[in-house]
């Protein structure tokens, strides 16, 4: 069971939250102008990092606000959370093979 620090409500258990996948993916400003490959990249392709991962969560059964979390996907260690639009906290990034 993860304990996720919601930046608005504090630390709660994972089943209060819903997952939003990879963070910092920017939706193309004008979807009609990008190629199919660029659109597929935005829509489907994933970093799927094994290690330090920046991801989006929403506090569904709490404040219902979206925010970002930095978590290690192998050890499940949560390094911290930050509001949308804020800079991520500085963490010692790791990737595993």
């Amino acid at each position: 069971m993860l304990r996720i620090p919601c930046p608005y409500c504090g630390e709660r258990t994972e089943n209060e939250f819903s997952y939003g996948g990879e963070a910092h993916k920017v939706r193309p400003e004008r979807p009609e102008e990008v190629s199919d490959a660029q659109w597929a990249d935005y829509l489907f392709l994933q970093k799927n990092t094994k290690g330090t991962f920046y991801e989006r969560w929403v506090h569904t059964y709490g404040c219902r606000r979206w925010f970002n979390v930095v978590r290690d996907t192998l050890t499940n260690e949560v390094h911290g959370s930050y509001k949308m639009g804020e800079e991520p906290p500085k963490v010692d990034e790791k990737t595993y093979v």
Partner: protein
Amino acid sequence: MTARYSIFSLVKNALSYHENWQQAWHSPEPKKQYDAVIVGGGGHGLVTAYYLAKEHGLRNIAVIERGWLGGGNTGRNTTIVRSNYMWDQSAALYEHSLKLWENMTRELNFNVMFSQRSVLNLAHTLNEVRITKRRINSNRLNGIDSEWLEPEDVKREVPIIDLRGGGRYPVMGGSIQRRAGTARHDAVAWGYARACSEMGVDIIQQCAVEGFDIEGGQVTGVRTSKGHIKTNKVGLVVAGHCGVLANMAGFKLPVNSRPLQALVSEPVKPIVHNVVMAGAVHAYISQSDKGELVIGAGTDAYNGYSQWGSNPVTEDTLAAICELYPLFKRMRMLRQWGGVVDTCPDASPIIGLSPVKGMYLNCGWGTGGFKATPGSGHIFADTVANNRPHPIAAPFALDRFRTGFLIDEHAAAGVAH
């Protein structure tokens, strides 16, 4: 030459207290160069090597595996085999596979304990009833056996079920595929490994991939923990870690890796003879030959490589099982584990060419790859040998995420595999 297994070899070896059985496969050191290297020594990888050697005449090939044979998802799944998928493309793929399952034990001279004990999919809501009936019609049009069961038929098949579902999950019917069933998962890996080894395929365990040599967009070698291997053909047949390998090769996949959990109970006398799945409530059970209930739960809601899984997931599954089978409320669970699965947005696998020349993909099987093991390897070997997708593999190309021709099996496959 590998000795055949038979009643005579069993008797002969019994006389020497089973101490003189021949090793089932060799464990050589890697050569400097191979015609093809298959990365991943699970079921799919071994079957790929088997058909490359058997049907395409490639004998100078290697299967490299970071851990041990069948120690990944091949040994971690809940061993269910079925082919009642809804879309034509999937029906072709999984039915091709089921037909190979039916002859596997004889072909390999290795008992994979394929047991066609039937798979039942329960419907708990009116919507599920409609979807299930639609899927049955679709199955039958594709020549796949599939029948609708009224609630009383379900009760006849599974006498211990509570059709009221404890009031929470009423059983409104279900579908049954009688040719479906289970198989002994690690026997599949061992049987194919033995057959591969006999044909001269090098099976190299404890050999991790550390990188790829790519020159002008063409793969020319694999760097491994056991040294450098030259090759112009690489088949990536890994599950949860396909994204990690794709990163090494410089491209991204539409895959999220997540732990998928399973549990087994203490062994009891025979009580459930089919596989019973309830997709809507994330609960499916079968009983192993040892008597344990084998229970499949869902994937975690978030990415992870932990091979452990999140508690609430198993809790939900067990809660549903207690409602459907009140008898099991006092069963104790013996083991729980997770396997890292590579889930695709449309719940269908990726089989075919990759952005790198000479590198081929067989991944993205998500929560349901075991059933497809022989068919997947068969069409993938053809794809690797001929450098073009096998007709059954063609719709499952990576490119479908660009063209938009997804094969959406979410509703049809449910969560249960």
